[in-house]
């Protein structure tokens, strides 16, 4: 119906540079307001953490069966969101889906910043935060090591690997763009970009190595992302608790992560497109493709949910079965059904083309999807703890204001990091958009030439009296 292209091939390369560099200019008032809001949110979290640090974990309303609550749920949520960049940068790169080129930069940035946010939570949720470095394997004169059997130590390894690999991937991918910024900047920015672009000159040797390195890093990042979220799911799957001791948790979590990440991409897509006037690059057809991808992942997530529910329903494990029934009908039922609605029903808006093309609708839908995913994380953590093996310790528990403040503040922290990023680094990859335009133009030219050739052949055939192609 809509015959639009992903990007206008005739766009001048100079315009690409100009548009993206303009986004990094001195910010308007709305930007500073956003920064202020993020700082205030972060201040809430800092104050709440101060209370927790000095008083103990008690103000978080944790008690004997509920030893984990919002912090772990939010931790899993942020790690999940980080899979967006990997999906877009790495997976779509390997399958040569070039529509990712205008949008993968901010997605990759989102990955790095969600990981930096997520990494705070295993530290915040500890009872003795000041000793958190004990989970790292360092040589100590007392000869003690962390317990490598524990999924929390696997978390420490996996998240640090993923964070460093993601940062490296983001940085390496940005080097040619930083060279462009360096060539067009003055003052402190010029110094910064000069250092960061590492002397990039567009030399063919540099490009050759660059292309190899980018591919290698993408190939590493994909299994890394899968393994990181599988390890995070192992925090639950390696325990014996009903509702946690589920073998489908690794793929379930990874699917949920891709889902949550894609929804966040849609949110940021709409925001960046509006605020930086990137309509030429973050076009509607690209939004449509992202929405279709999200929809597919939403259906995968729904399927895995159904698998989990039905395997519990048909099994003979009383603990698990009663827990599932309690999730759907007990005091947490409203969270459960909101999760089901936001996660499995709301994505159908992504399947309707008219809605897909309407940016404000997609913004709202993507926020709903992420709300569903947040609730899903919490539904994994809390109900199991409320209703585990020992009936004497069954309990209902809701988070306290301290927990909510810290969770709320984490969004401020993420927002602050992202806001700083978009003003210092190009949020659209200039060289990749140029490549996209170059290859599409070339493809058009080739198509044109091929069409001309076929027409000439037909003309020649008809001139010589042979039957030509009909309706060619």
């Amino acid at each position, binding site marked *: 119906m809509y015959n639009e292209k992903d990007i206008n091939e005739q766009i001048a390369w100079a315009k690409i540079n100009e548009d993206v560099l303009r986004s990094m200019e001195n910010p308007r008032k709305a930007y500073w307001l956003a920064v202020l809001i993020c700082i205030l949110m972060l201040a809430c979290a800092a104050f709440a953490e101060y209370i927790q640090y000095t*008083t*103990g*974990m*008690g103000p978080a*309303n*944790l*008690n*004997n*069966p*509920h*030893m*984990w609550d919002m912090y772990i749920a939010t931790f899993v949520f942020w790690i999940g969101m980080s899979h967006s960049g990997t999906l877009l940068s790495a997976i779509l790169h390997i399958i040569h889906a070039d529509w990712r080129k205008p949008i993968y930069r901010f997605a990759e940035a989102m990955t790095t910043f969600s990981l930096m946010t997520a990494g705070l939570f*295993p530290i915040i*949720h*500890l*009872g*003795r*935060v000041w*000793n*958190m470095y*004990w*989970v790292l394997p360092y040589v100590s004169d007392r000869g*003690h*090591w*962390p*317990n490598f*059997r*524990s*999924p*929390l*130590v696997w978390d*420490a390894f996996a998240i640090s690997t993923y964070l460093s690999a993601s940062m490296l991937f983001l940085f390496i991918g940005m080097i040619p763009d930083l060279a462009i910024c360096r060539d067009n900047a003055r003052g402190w920015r010029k110094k910064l970009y000069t250092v960061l672009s590492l002397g990039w000159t567009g030399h063919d040797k540099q490009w050759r190595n660059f292309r190899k390195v980018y591919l290698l890093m993408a190939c590493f990042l994909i299994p890394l992302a899968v393994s990181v979220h599988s390890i995070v799911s192992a*925090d639950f799957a*390696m*325990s*014996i*608790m009903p509702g946690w001791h589920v073998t489908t948790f690794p793929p379930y979590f990874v699917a949920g992560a891709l889902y949550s990440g894609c929804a966040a991409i849609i949110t940021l897509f709409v925001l960046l497109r509006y605020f930086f006037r990137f309509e030429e690059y973050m076009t509607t057809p690209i939004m449509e493709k992202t929405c279709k991808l999200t929809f597919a992942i939403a259906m995968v997530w729904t399927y895995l949910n159904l698998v989990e529910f039905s395997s519990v329903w048909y099994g003979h494990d009383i603990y698990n079965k009663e827990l599932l029934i309690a999730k759907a009908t007990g005091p947490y039922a409203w969270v459960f059904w909101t999760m089901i609605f936001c996660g499995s029903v709301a994505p159908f808006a992504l399947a309707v083309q008219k809605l897909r093309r309407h940016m404000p609708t997609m913004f709202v839908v993507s926020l709903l999807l992420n709300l569903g995913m947040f609730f899903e994380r919490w539904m994994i953590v809390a109900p199991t*703890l409320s209703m*585990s*093996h*020992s*009936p*004497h*310790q069954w*309990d209902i*528990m809701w988070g306290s204001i301290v927990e909510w403040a810290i969770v709320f503040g984490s969004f401020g922290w993420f927002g602050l990091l992202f806001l700083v990023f978009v003003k210092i680094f190009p949020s659209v990859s200039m060289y990749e958009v140029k490549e996209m335009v170059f290859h599409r133009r070339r493809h058009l030219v080739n198509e044109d030439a091929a069409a001309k050739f076929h027409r000439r052949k037909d003309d020649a055939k008809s001139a010589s009296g042979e039957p030509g192609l009909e309706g060619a």
Partner: protein
Amino acid sequence: MSLENLLGNWSQYRKGHEEGGFHDYEHQWGMAIDLDICIGCNACSTACYAENNLAVVGKERFEKGQAMHWLRLERYWDQNELDHPEQGASFLPMMCQQCDAATCEPVCPVAATYHTPDGLNAQVYNRCIGSRYCSNNCPYRNRYFNFYSYYEDSWPEPLNMQLNPDLTVRDKGVMEKCTFCVQRIRVAKDKARMENRPVADGEAMTACAQACPTNAIVFGDYKDENSQVAKLWKKYQVKRRLTKQKKDNPELRGYRIFEELNVDPSVMYLERVREDV
């Protein structure tokens, strides 16, 4: 050097619970609790509070579930049709079961909980960073976390004089649980070692076993065949390392809670005899 260790002892280091484990146990402390004799008086729980410097947290925090009772009396009411409703009451003293294949041990990120050569599940307060995974993984939910610095207001002067000097008072952020009064076990073992003799049955006595008015709690060394505990386990045909006990006589009352989860607990309960009035 650790690599030498590794290469020299590879086969031993690869042994898990099913193959007998890495340790050769010199003692294996166990308990037998007769629920028929238990009257639910809570003397055991109170003795545990006194012996182990447990903080009394107050009504508000107890209701929130932040209590520190290492040994708790679980009360259950049988709701079925009974001639006399009081018959429905039952009590279960529940403390750390010191599982041989404890689920809490492998999940601690800093190795703050481990299995001693005594067969006890030890908690190292100094090492605990408070990640609370161990408590989440305990099927009995027997691990208690110091949500506050209870010592600040639980023992105002002169109550602080009642604290047991044989063990610490824990600060906030640290996990704790029943240790089978390991301080008493250590004293008994030290004494026996100094006098060059094995530990006699009854010499190491937990506070709860000592305080129980009806002697419902029996504590001792399972490895010592002549101890009361070992004899009780044998009498009621409950064996370790099984997830389902095979008994000659189904009337034998011995059972272990949640043993089907393959945790191998060290506490045997004797089922309450239900009267038909």
